[in-house]
C-alpha cells in the first residue's frame, strides 16, 4: 500500500481534530477532537514504521506509549469536565473564563459566580 493513503487519512483526521478543538463549545467534544488529533499521529507513526521497515519497530512502540498517555489524559480530562459541570452547570468552553483578566465592575454576574465557587 502506498504511503499516501494513511498520510492523507492522518491529515484529514488531524484537521477534523483541530477544527473540533477550536470551534466546538462542548468540552466533551473538544476532548474527543484532541483524541482524534492524537490518533492521527498514531496512524502516522504506524504507517512510517511499516514504510521504513524498522527492525526495532520504534513507531509501534511509541504508538503504544501515546495510547497509554491518551487514556490517562482522557480520564483526567473527563474528571475535570465532570467537576466543572457540577459546579457551573455548564460544559461550554467559552463560559468557563474564570482565569481571564476581568474588572470586577465589568461583569458582576461573573464575579458573583466566582464568589459562589470560592464558597463551594
Amino acid at each position, binding site marked *: 500500500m502506498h504511503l499516501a493513503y494513511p498520510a492523507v487519512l492522518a491529515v484529514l483526521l488531524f484537521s477534523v481534530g*483541530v477544527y473540533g*478543538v*477550536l*470551534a466546538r463549545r462542548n468540552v466533551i467534544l*473538544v476532548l474527543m477532537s484532541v483524541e482524534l488529533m492524537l490518533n492521527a499521529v498514531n496512524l502516522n507513526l504506524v504507517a512510517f514504521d511499516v514504510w521504513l521497515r524498522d527492525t526495532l519497530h520504534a513507531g509501534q512502540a511509541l504508538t503504544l506509549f501515546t495510547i497509554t498517555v491518551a487514556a490517562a489524559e482522557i480520564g483526567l480530562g473527563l474528571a475535570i469536565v465532570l467537576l466543572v459541570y457540577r459546579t457551573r452547570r455548564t460544559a461550554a*468552553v*467559552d463560559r*468557563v*473564563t*474564570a*482565569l*481571564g*483578566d*476581568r474588572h470586577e465592575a465589568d461583569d458582576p454576574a461573573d464575579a458573583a459566580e466566582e464568589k459562589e465557587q470560592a464558597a463551594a
Partner: protein
Amino acid sequence: MNLALPILVPVLPALGAAAGLATGRRYPALARPLAVLPVAVSAVLALVTALQLGTGTTLDAATRLAPTGGPEISLALHLDGFTSLISVLVGLVATCVQIYSTAYLKDDPRYPSYAALVSLFTAAMFLVVYSGDLIVLLVGWEVMGICSYFLIGHHWETADARAASLKAFLVTKLGDVPFLFGLFLLGADAGTFRIGEVLRVAAAGDLHHPTLIALLLLAGVAGKSAQFPLHTWLPDAMAGPTPVSALIHAATMVAAGIYLVARLLPVFLQSSAALVVLAVMAAVTMIGSALCALAQDDLKRVLAYSTVGQLGYMAGALAAGDRQAAVFHLVSHGAFKALLFLGAGVVIHAAHTNSISAMARMDGLRHRIPDAWWTMTIGLLALAGVFPFSGFFSKESVLGAAEHAAHGEALTGALGPASAVPQAVGWTVLVAGLLTALLTAAYAARLWLSVFYGRSRNGEDLAPQPGAPYSPELDEADPAHAEPAAMRLILWVLAVPALAFGVAGLRTDWLPALLDGESLRVSVATGVIGTGVAVAGLLIGYAAWRTVNARAAAGRPAADPARLLLGPLYRPAQHGFGVDRLYSTLFVRPTEAAAGLVRFLDRAVVETYVRGAGAAPGWLGRAVRFAQTGNAQGYLNALLAGAVLLVVLVAVGS
C-alpha cells in the same frame, strides 16, 4: 621637647567633641564636664608647650600623610613664637567661653551639641595654628567654617538664624574656593605644601606667580576675616548665641585669616600689587565698618562691625609688612573683644533686649550688673585705644608700622626688603587708621553712655528702633539673675589681658623676642596723634550724647547720638551702606531666578519624560490585558495562527 604635648592640644578638644556628641542625649549630666575639661586641659597644654618652646626657637616635625605623586601632604607640626602666642590666646578664650556657656545656655535643650561644636571648633583652630602643612591647615580652616555654620544656626527655630548661618557659610565659601586654588598654585610653584619650605622658596624669590597666588589667598582671607567686600556675613552672624560670637567672630575664627597672612607674609611681600590690594581692602573695611558700628542700634552688631574694623587694622599692619604688629593687635583684640561680647551677653540678659536705644531708656543698668559695667568699661577703653589699656599699645604698633612703611622703611624684619612695601600702602593704612581711631572712640563712647547711663522717662516704651537691622536671640533668662558667678568671674579673667597685655610689647626682650625680634615700642608721633584722636572721639561721642539728652529733657523726642554725628549718612550706615542690598540685586536675585528656571526645567521638561516613560508601558499593559479573556479556545486560535505564521515564514525564508 616632647611632641606629645603639642599633638594633644588639638586632639583633646576633638575627642571631647566626639564624646560630647555621642553621650549628650543619653547622659546630659556629662555634657558640662565634657565641654569644659578637654578645652581647659588643652589650654594648659598650649601654655606648657609655649613655655617649653621658649623664645627664639622653632620646632618642625612631620610625618608623611599621603603620597600624591605631586607635592606630598604631610601631617606636619610647626611651632614658633607666633603659634605659642596665638594658641595660648585660643586656649584662654575657648576655656572662658565654655565656662561662660555653662551658665549662659543653662536651660538650653541643645546645650550638649552646642558645647561639642564649640570644642570641635577649638580643635580646628588649634590645628590651623599648629599645622606646618598647607593642606592640613586647610582641613582645620574648613572645619571651622562648618562649625561656624552650625553654631550661628544654633537657634534654628528663628528664620533670622537660619538665614544668617547660610549666609555665613556661603560667603566664606565664596572666598574659600579661590583660596583653595591659591593653595594649589602655591604648592605647585614651591613644589611642596610644607609651610617652612614654601617660605624658603618665597624668600629666595623663586615663586613663578606671586601676585596671582597672593590675590587668590587674599580672597579666602577676606572671607574668613570678614574684610570688604566679603564682610557682610559677620554682622548677621550675631544671630548665634553670644558666647559663639565671642569665640568665633571675635577671637579665633576671624583671626585665622590674619594668622595665615602673617605666616605666609614672605609670599605676599613678593607682590607689591597684592599688598596694595590688601591695604585698600583694609582701609575701606576700617572706615566703612566704623561708620556702620556708629549707626547700629543692636548692641551685638556694634561689636560685630567693630570686629570687622579691628581686623582691618590687622590687615593694614600686614599690608605694611609688619606681622608682629598684626599679631600683637590680634591677641590684644582677641582678649578685649571676647570680653566685650561676653559682657554684652550679660547686658542683654539683664536688659532683655539687644537694642541700644531701648537700653538708653532704662534706669541704672550699671547698678544691676556692676561686674559687666566695670569690665566692659575696661574693654571699651581698650577698644578705643586709650593709654594704658592693651588696645592702645597694639593699635599704636599698627599705626607705627604704617608710618614706617609710609617713609619707605617698612618693618618687614628678616622676611624681605623694606622696599617691598610701596609707600602708598603706608599712607593709606596710616590715614585710614587714624580716621578709624576717631570713629572707634566715638562709637565706644556712644555704646558705653547709652547702655550704662540710660535714663527712663515717663511715657516711653522700650521698643527697639523701628527699621534698624537686628539679630535678636531667643532669650528666656531671668533678668534678676543675669550675672551668675560663672559669667561674672570670666569677665574679670578676660579683663586682665585687656588691661595689661599691652605692656608686653614695651621691651624688645618681652613679647618681640617671642615673635620676630623687632621693636614694638610706640613711636612718639603716632602715639601723640593716636591718643589725641581717640580722646577727641570720646569727647565727640560724649558731646553728642549730652546734646541728645538735653533735647530729650526739653521734651523733644530722644534721638540716637549717632544720628546727630552722622547726619545724612546715618540711615545708609545703619544698613551697612546697602552692600547687602547690592549683593542681593547683583548675585542673589539672578541666582534665585536661575534656580527657578532650573526648577521649571526639571519639573516641566525632565519630569515629563520620566512620567511618559512610566505611562507608556502602563497603557501597553492595559491593551494587552484585553487579550486575556479567559477563553481557552481564543488562546489556542492565537497559538495556531502563530504556529502557521512561523511555518510560513520559515518556508518563505528558506
